[in-house]
């Protein structure tokens, strides 16, 4: 696998070396031909701009990330740029392609940053929030409130809360505690108070069904059931729920 990856990276470098930067005229000519359906022109345009892809990918690369994957994902941005570029508008291809490549790279970063996919705009907002929080903390010497951050960023409090919640760190239930060696899942299931959510939901549903059915009882039937099972709201309410003489004496004591 490593061998394959090295070969792949080398292949990219080889393509970059073999395809020098295009002149403005060449760019326009190839783009026009590509628009007409020339596969050669399209490929040439892509290969000649791999240099740009490598440059942007290097900028976004992090230690915990596979550079080859980032490179490939960024290349998808380049391909999109080639397919959508309009040479008649007058600007350079690299100006246009940079945004597509950055977008593809950022999307990959976002998707690989967490096990749960969070929308890119939310993750970008979260970065802004963290930066702003650090700034405010430095200024005032204390941790800012969400409201203060929202005011500083000119965003609604609700949006800030959502972004913070969505980008919160997650822990795997199977992660072992270094000290105790137990997992979070063990901890949860060992807890006596733990109730399976499915059971809880079924119980809730059953209770709701019974409640609905109880409404079918007549006042007389309900009263007899209450008397039979000693169901009263107030134990001293002997007027609505009469009790035996022995019980009356007991209550009076």
């Amino acid at each position: 696998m490593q061998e394959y990856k090295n070969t792949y990276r080398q292949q990219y470098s080889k393509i970059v070396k073999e395809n020098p930067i295009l002149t403005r005229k060449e760019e326009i000519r190839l783009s026009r031909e590509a628009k007409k359906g020339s596969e050669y022109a399209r490929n040439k345009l892509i290969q000649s701009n791999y240099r740009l892809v490598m440059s942007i990918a290097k900028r976004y690369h992090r230690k915990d990330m596979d550079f080859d994957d980032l490179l490939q994902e960024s290349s998808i941005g380049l391909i999109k740029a080639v397919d959508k570029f309009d040479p008649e508008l007058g600007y350079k291809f690299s100006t246009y392609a940079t945004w597509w490549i950055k977008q593809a790279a950022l999307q990959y970063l976002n998707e690989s940053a967490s096990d749960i996919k969070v929308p890119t705009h939310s993750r970008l907002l979260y970065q802004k929030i963290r930066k702003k929080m650090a700034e405010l903390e430095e200024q005032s010497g204390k941790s800012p409130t969400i409201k203060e951050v929202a005011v500083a960023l000119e965003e609604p409090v609700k949006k800030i809360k959502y972004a913070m919640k969505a980008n919160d760190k997650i822990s795997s239930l199977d992660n072992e505690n270094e000290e105790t060696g137990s997992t979070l899942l063990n901890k949860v299931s060992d807890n006596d108070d733990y109730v399976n959510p499915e059971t809880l939901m079924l119980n809730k549903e059953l209770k709701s069904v019974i409640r609905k059915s109880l409404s079918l009882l007549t006042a007389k039937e309900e009263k007899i059931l209450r008397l039979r099972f000693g169901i009263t709201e107030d134990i001293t309410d002997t007027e609505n729920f009469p009790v035996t003489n022995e019980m009356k004496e007991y209550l009076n004591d």
Partner: protein
Amino acid sequence: MTKKYVTVKNTGLGLYDIAKIMTDEGDKMNHSTVRNIINRSFVKVAKSITSQYGLNYDDERIFNIAKSPEFQNSVVEILSRKKNE
């Protein structure tokens, strides 16, 4: 012999006491009527629940459900919370 009575552990009144209270309040009845009303009430609730779950049970099966202590405890528990909510 099949047991015909609905029996649960309870802290309420006996059938005779209930019959007396109901009679004093104008609903003349004896202990058997009280027992029948209790049985009928549980059967009514059981029938409604099974139909809500789309189960087409015959009367004997519904009566078996109605007389089971688990079922009666659930009904009593919810009935005891009903007025407090």
